């Protein structure tokens, strides 16, 4: 016992000496009252090659929130500029979203931005990357009075749609983006939101070639993209040309490439049901329904063909078609060779549609 006491004494003397001499090993301030977590950063192009960065502070306490904006040449520089403007210290540990302006993505590429996020162990790999069209700072300033928790509700929306099979919009986090960027035979994509009349709404999907935004696909094209690649599910698919809305559309895709790698057959099997129809056809008649199916089929085939053609012309492959050239027992193709092949490849689109019989319409027919 005496021995233990002696040991404890010795150790406590060592520790006291260390602390009293100011030789504290832990230097960072982590007192919660002194900190303000940043929930998102919005980046847009500033003057003379600078980047304009904005966020809302304070994000958590009950004080009145305000938008704070700085122009900096390096992203992490913003930490210093923000801290000099606010009485609490900013920390990135709770960052949930990175909102990038369209111009920045189009002109400069976003590799350097995401690299900054990846190297910081405090920043979660699950933060959402979002592209916005329009002035996000202005939107924040206008909207903050009306809707205090605007950043949180935006985050909740993304979180909600991230779950599988929502089939509404593309939600991509930092890791997914980076994996698509680094893996050969694939190009990344991000969701695009548009600011219009003090409202923010989903616009479509931004396609990237390497880290540069090259095209934004919207409405019908975007829905096809969701169906083919992202979620393989759509709650509703309106086809205005045919005056029909398909509901609960679930797709299964199959890709076949011929041996000389010149032709690819992309088959999409769809299970769905008609939710609404305002056209002339008598859908309770099996023959008419069959004709109608063929119409939908050719409409989707045409639209998809155009979308894929556009992707080929832009030389982007968000559908990861190249992956289908990989085989378990053969050497993977060189990435450059695949890009050459992809540009010239003849891609045939084929749809097989299965529509559930219309129960009520059928009963109507029996009454006739």
């Amino acid at each position: 016992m005496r021995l233990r006491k002696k040991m404890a004494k010795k150790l406590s003397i060592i520790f006291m000496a260390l602390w009293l001499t100011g030789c504290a090993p832990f230097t960072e301030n982590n007192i919660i009252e002194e900190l303000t977590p940043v929930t998102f950063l919005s980046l847009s192009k500033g003057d003379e090659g600078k980047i304009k960065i904005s966020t809302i502070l304070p994000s958590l306490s009950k004080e009145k929130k305000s938008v704070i904006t700085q122009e900096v040449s390096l992203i992490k520089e913003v930490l210093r500029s923000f801290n000099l403007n606010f009485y609490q210290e900013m920390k990135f540990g709770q960052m949930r979203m990175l909102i990038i302006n369209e111009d920045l993505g189009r002109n400069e590429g976003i590799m350097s931005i995401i690299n900054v996020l990846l190297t910081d162990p405090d920043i979660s790999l699950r933060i959402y990357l979002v592209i916005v069209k329009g002035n996000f700072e202005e939107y924040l300033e206008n909207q903050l009075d009306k809707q205090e928790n605007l950043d949180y509700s935006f985050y909740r929306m993304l979180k909600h749609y991230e779950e599988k099979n929502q089939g509404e919009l593309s939600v991509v986090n930092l890791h997914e983006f980076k994996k698509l960027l680094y893996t050969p035979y694939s190009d990344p994509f991000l969701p695009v939101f548009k600011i219009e009349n003090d409202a923010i709404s989903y616009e479509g999907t931004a396609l990237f070639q390497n880290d540069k935004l090259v095209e934004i696909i919207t409405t019908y094209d975007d829905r096809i993209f969701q169906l083919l690649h992202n979620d393989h599910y759509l709650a509703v698919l309106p086809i205005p040309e045919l005056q029909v809305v398909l509901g609960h559309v679930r797709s299964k895709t199959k890709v076949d490439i011929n041996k000389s790698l010149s032709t690819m057959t992309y088959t999409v099997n769809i299970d769905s049901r008609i939710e609404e129809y305002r056209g002339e056809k008598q859908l309770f008649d099996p023959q008419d329904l069959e004709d109608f199916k063929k119409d939908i089929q050719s409409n989707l085939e045409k639209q998809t063909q155009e979308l894929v053609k556009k992707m080929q012309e832009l030389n982007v492959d968000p559908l990861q078609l190249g992956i289908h050239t990989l085989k378990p027992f053969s050497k993977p193709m060189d990435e450059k060779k695949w890009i050459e092949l992809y540009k010239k490849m003849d891609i045939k689109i084929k749809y097989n549609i299965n529509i559930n019989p219309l129960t009520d319409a059928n009963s109507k027919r029996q009454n006739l």
Partner: protein
Amino acid sequence: MEALQLFNKNETYNGFYAMLMVNRLQMLYFFLIMPRFLIHSYMIWVIIAVGILSQLNILLLSKWFLTRFSSEGYNGFVQLFGKKLVRLLSFIGLFFILLKLFVILLGFSEMVQIFMFPATDSNWLIFFILLSCLYVAWKGVEKTIRFVVISFLCTFWMFLFFAFFFFPPIAQLSDLYPIIPMELSVDSWKGIFLILSSFSGPEFLVFLGPWFKTNNKTFRYLSYGNALTVIEYVFLYMASLFYFGSNYLSKSQFPIVTMARYFQNPVIERIDMVMLSLELFNIVFAVSIFLLLFYGASKIASGKMERPPSRVGFLFSVFIILIGMILVNEWIWKSDEKQVILLNLQILAGSLSYLVVPITMIVVMKIKGFNKHETTKEDG
């Protein structure tokens, strides 16, 4: 002042403890960084092949355990090699232990610094970790061996978490293609050595023979430990291929911890921090064993085997290790170029010791003409 009882033998442990020790000594620092160096998906087969090779070593080890020399400890070695050679060998062994200690502790404290305390000087982390190891080692070999149970319970379940990455949307089966090697590069050879060195560790059990109850079941238990390691390695490697894909994998410095950062939980956000902290139990266990082995070996090397272990001596040896570690940290570990040299050295030394030690023991016994059956201990 009562004497320090570091190397006392009041009780012997059964094969279960040996199994846990084999497994935990194989799951040290290297498994945390290994996927980054393997990259290609066909390395899964190499892990399995090296696992089988390691199994052969385990067979030799268990044969050694069945002899009376193993239970006699130092005297057993003296009978086999002679006093002078034992002194020389333990002197050489000191370097192997030091190298392993340095790589494990420096590597782990670097991770702790990067992911948990970025503003803290890594020397402080080394000091604190070594302090906890000293506490465990101070309790003696018996208690330290017993500590493996805590270390196992704290860390074993972690690899099951990684099953999450086996399921879409991140995973794609094509991430595992091609599953057989189409061309072999120099890196592949390096990979083989890296895996072998990661599997090393059980060879140090040779010196802990007196504390183990050995019987015919020992081989079975040791094999279970080794097989568990193979499963954990393959599982973690496949998970990292699914998560990163081959190309991106080579760019990630600490793949396993980075993957742990992706886990999400509404209550605890930084699961990686919890995992790293628990992993510390495994590191503390291994380092404590190596501290004791280092002190024992230095006693033999300096010819002071007859004297009881002294407080000052043990503290002095740990102090030397601390100073050495801080110097290596400052001069070698912090510069990436030199760090690679140290890592490569450990990869070579680890592979070499794991291959050579069990073979030497068996060969020397054969040369000296000791018949296994004459020397076998009684069961139990």
